[in-house]
């Protein structure tokens, strides 16, 4: 009896350590979702002020982009049918940043046509990738998760690498595998590279805090200070790449 149940739990643990394995113990179910939702409904009032500031800051940025566009016809063009990315909004109802493998919960699910591998970003930068979905809820593998790896690049050049997390601080993530010849300097902006077909190119991630060569002396290991305050998340955007099935089909052929 003991051994049976103990090995069950070990099995679940091992499964949870591999990325995207089908595990059925997750918080994207009706029970956990509704409890977290109720709790979040109350606690959301306490962060109203800071969330409002974030949203109005983003509005200001978008307005200034909109009215400063030199070529206004571009706006009309972007409304045409070949928009590859579709944005929808959601709320984080469970945030987590103190464990090694952090998983968030959002209040949108299959009923809102959210599927696995959609990107999640906030007004300030990326947050993670959708993992499991249920009717009304979905779990998100945060960038603060030791199994997450996201393609990212330097903003000023196109040298790209992989964004990982060393589980030490929720303010910093690590960008590895950047070629030694890349001109890295402290304060440079890191953005998503658009190579993974999850995130579009150009979503901000953070700035270079410090960097050093790795053991092989061929690649940089960069400490990235995140734009996002991962401890204070509320409103997020879910990014769907409409061309993704086509891209994955092509790659699998």
């Amino acid at each position, binding site marked *: *009896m*003991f051994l049976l*149940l*103990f090995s*069950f*739990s*070990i*099995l*679940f*643990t*091992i*499964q*949870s*350590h591999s990325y995207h394995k089908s*595990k059925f*113990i*997750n*918080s994207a*179910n009706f*029970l*956990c979702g509704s*409890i*977290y939702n109720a*709790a979040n409904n109350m606690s959301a009032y306490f962060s109203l002020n800071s969330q409002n500031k974030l949203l109005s800051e983003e509005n200001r940025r978008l307005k200034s982009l909109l009215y400063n566009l030199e070529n206004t016809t571009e706006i009309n063009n972007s409304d045409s049918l070949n928009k590859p990315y579709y944005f929808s909004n959601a709320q984080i109802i469970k945030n*987590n*940043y*103190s*464990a*090694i*493998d952090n*998983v968030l*919960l959002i209040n949108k699910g299959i009923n809102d046509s959210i599927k696995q591998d959609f990107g999640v970003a906030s007004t300030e930068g990326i947050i993670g990738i959708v993992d499991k979905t249920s009717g009304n809820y979905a*779990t998100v593998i945060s960038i603060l998760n030791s199994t997450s790896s996201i393609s990212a690049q330097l903003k000023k050049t196109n040298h790209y690498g992989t964004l990982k997390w060393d589980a030490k*601080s*929720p303010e910093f993530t690590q960008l590895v595998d950047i070629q030694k010849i890349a001109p890295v300097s402290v304060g440079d902006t890191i953005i998503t590279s658009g190579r993974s077909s999850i995130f579009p190119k150009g979503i901000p991630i953070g700035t270079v805090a410090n960097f050093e060569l790795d053991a092989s002396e061929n690649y940089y290991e960069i400490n990235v200070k995140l734009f996002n305050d991962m*401890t204070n998340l509320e409103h997020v955007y879910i990014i769907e790449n409409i061309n993704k099935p086509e891209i994955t089909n092509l790659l699998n052929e």
Partner: protein
Amino acid sequence: MNNLFSVNSIRFIVLILIQVLVFNNINFLGYINPYPYILFIALFPIKNNRAIIILSSFLLGLTIDMFLDSGGIHAAACVFIAYVRPIILKFSFGMIYEHHTIKFSTVEFGSKLTYVILLVILHHIILFSLEIFNFSKIILVLQKTLFSSMFTILLSMIITIIFSQKPK
């Protein structure tokens, strides 16, 4: 029996809710969280069947895992301490346990403390070694175990003192 059953199911639900909604959001110094939900296992009636306590501990751990998206680490740790509980009981209460006359509200404070400390430390060691799952980070495991244990033990003792029925 019926009364005992209802008391324990209420304790089960309340401890899970408090754990998930309150104690997991403490993040003291960034990562230290207490896990006083294992009080359910600690205070489970002693005379009951061993299979029942192991099964209910498994359910307890699994529910916590579900809420925290942590695979099966809490379930594993809970099942383990439920399994070794008789040994710890014998160690910390000695003769009283042999005669099956323990009541948690009447035993003296010192032996109760040893009992809780042993349970908590065992639970946390298993919990964090499974969470980190890496032998090269053994220092981190021990560090997390130490800090979280202190926090959990303190809170558990406070909760038991507050909610213990006074012997009349």
